[in-house]
């Protein structure tokens, strides 16, 4: 049984450098200049799951992303991890897309790639965390969608049991392919890139497609195709302030309890 898989990935600012991110007061967008980028960690879990499914059965793992030219780096890393092919949707017209326009563009990319049995993506991203793009892609492709996936089990050809995480506990869902599964980080531990993978990937270049290549409608992509409007962006500045008690341990505890009582934290 061959399973052809498309994994959608996104390049995001490295969370270790989030403190350096600033907001542009005019465009209301995040200023990412000079912030190192990584592949969204959830998407690496999605890729890892795709590679494991390919190792168990057969088929191809194709990686797809939308973004500026530097997104190529994430696709090259995906190839080094073991993906068979990589496509980058890169066009100025795609810029400033909200989740709907992004999902539309990725869905057009998937249709252009052609045959697939399974689409995998991360459940959310570290930068915006809406969790909307996966389900929206599934809607555009008219296929089944399951989110928060923590385990995928193949029962028989084209039939899966998918375990999805709930706030407390989990839910088992029967899924028939084709489907889109948005995975959580507990599903697996992504493999590390090896020198062997790097050298094999050196022979495969990511292919780049623009708006015309995927036949996207101009009014459905980029800022123009985005129904969402950002009216205001606000920086979160914590106002809480620590207070250090002094004295012997007994005195400090007494003072802390008094302070908590004053604030209504203790009855």
């Amino acid at each position, binding site marked *: 049984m061959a399973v052809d898989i498309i994994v959608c990935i996104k390049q995001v600012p490295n969370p270790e450098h989030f403190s350096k991110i600033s907001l542009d007061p005019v465009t209301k967008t995040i200023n990412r200049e000079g912030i190192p980028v990584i592949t969204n960690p959830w998407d690496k879990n999605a890729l890892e799951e795709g590679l494991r499914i390919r190792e168990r059965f057969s088929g191809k793992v194709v990686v797809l992303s939308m973004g500026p030219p530097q997104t190529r780096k994430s696709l*090259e890393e995906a190839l080094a991890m073991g993906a068979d092919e990589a496509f980058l949707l890169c066009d100025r017209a795609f810029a400033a897309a909200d989740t709907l326009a992004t999902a539309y563009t990725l869905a057009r990319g998937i249709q252009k790639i052609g045959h697939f049995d399974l689409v995998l993506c991360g459940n959310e991203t570290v930068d915006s965390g809406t969790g909307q793009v996966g389900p929206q892609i599934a809607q555009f492709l008219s296929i089944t969608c399951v989110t928060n996936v923590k385990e995928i089990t193949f029962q028989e050809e084209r039939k899966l049991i998918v375990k999805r995480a709930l706030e407390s506990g989990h839910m088992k869902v029967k899924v028939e392919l084709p489907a889109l599964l948005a995975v959580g980080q507990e599903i697996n531990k992504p493999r590390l890139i090896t020198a*062997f993978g*790097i050298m094999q990937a050196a022979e495969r270049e990511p292919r780049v497609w623009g708006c015309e290549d995927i036949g996207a409608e101009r009014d459905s992509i980029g800022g123009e195709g985005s129904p969402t409007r950002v009216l205001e962006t606000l920086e979160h500045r914590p106002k809480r302030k620590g207070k250090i008690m002094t004295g012997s341990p007994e005195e400090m505890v007494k003072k802390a309890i008094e302070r908590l009582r004053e604030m209504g934290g203790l009855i």
Partner: protein
Amino acid sequence: MDFNLTRQQEMLRDAVHEFADAELAPRALELDEKGEFPFDIVKRTAEMGLVGIMTPKEYDGTEMGHLARMIAIEEISRVYPPLGFFFQTGHLGHWSLQTYGTEEQKKKYLPPLCRGEMVICDAITEPSGGSDPTTTQTTAELAGNEFIINGRKVYITLAGVADLACVLAKTDDKFNEILVEKGTPGFEITRREHLAGFRTTPVNEVAFTNCRVPKSNLIGQEGKGLGIGLSAISVIGRTGVAGIGLGIARGCYEAALKFAKERQLYGKPIGELQAIQFALVDMNVEIEATKWLSYYAAWQIDQGKGIREIGVDIARAKLLGCDLANKVAPKAVQIMGGYGLSEEYHVVRRLRDALHLFPAAGTQEIMKVTIGRSIMA
């Protein structure tokens, strides 16, 4: 002039960085405490294609080159320097074999070496000293189709765990490099040295008593052994030391920087005090300077330049790499105060390892002799 690393080299750096943080850092203290050679980690790095990083693909290597090798050694040594030392020393034999070995030797030994199923050591230094190998006393008498080896070697890194040794010996008045397999009668691994650092990379004495090996174990042409041994020490050993020195320095600098940002004194982080900040700045600048000088030496090897042409560049890299580690590590201890001496903070073990770089692959003074000869010529 292009200072950019290739995409492959960048990806390798990120991958080895991640590997070192995820798989070496949690085990560093325990490994050092036990002092046992980490066969499982060596196997893991072999699976990642790091052991065969400069070996041609046809012998199961990844053929990424010498700059890639230096970057990998640097990233590994940033977290666990003894593993960097394994690469520094083990690759001496890999390189001698792939550069001078017969096709039969390459096919027999390089694939298991690259897969981490075999370990090789270089046996050159003798009790008379390591700086002048022309005083080698070990003999390899030619008797028909065999060499009969007699003599003693000291400070042989990896000998205790090696399956194969590359031995420098004299046949009449000529030098030969000869392969000796573990278990060959008359080849004995004797006492293990108890040294300050690199605790998981064993250093032993070895002895040869009428040890007979086939003549086909000769590496390269007859009588060229000294040149082969010294070239390996320069091209592989010294660049390896530069990589380890860079790694140790970065590891210590990062630990001291983190500490200086967190540790409060007079109501503010000590990093805001200029005495501390300037020490960190000095570390930062010296690491960058040494990095580019060392990368340049390794890059030139990848460009196919010969040892005669770039021996001085390599000597500069070894000299600075060793000095860098031995300046930055004690300074980090100083910034961190008592914590710097605590094993939990991972700086003092790197300081112990840094000390080993002084004699490794030629002393600092020998580097100066090499550079001195070049500038006085």
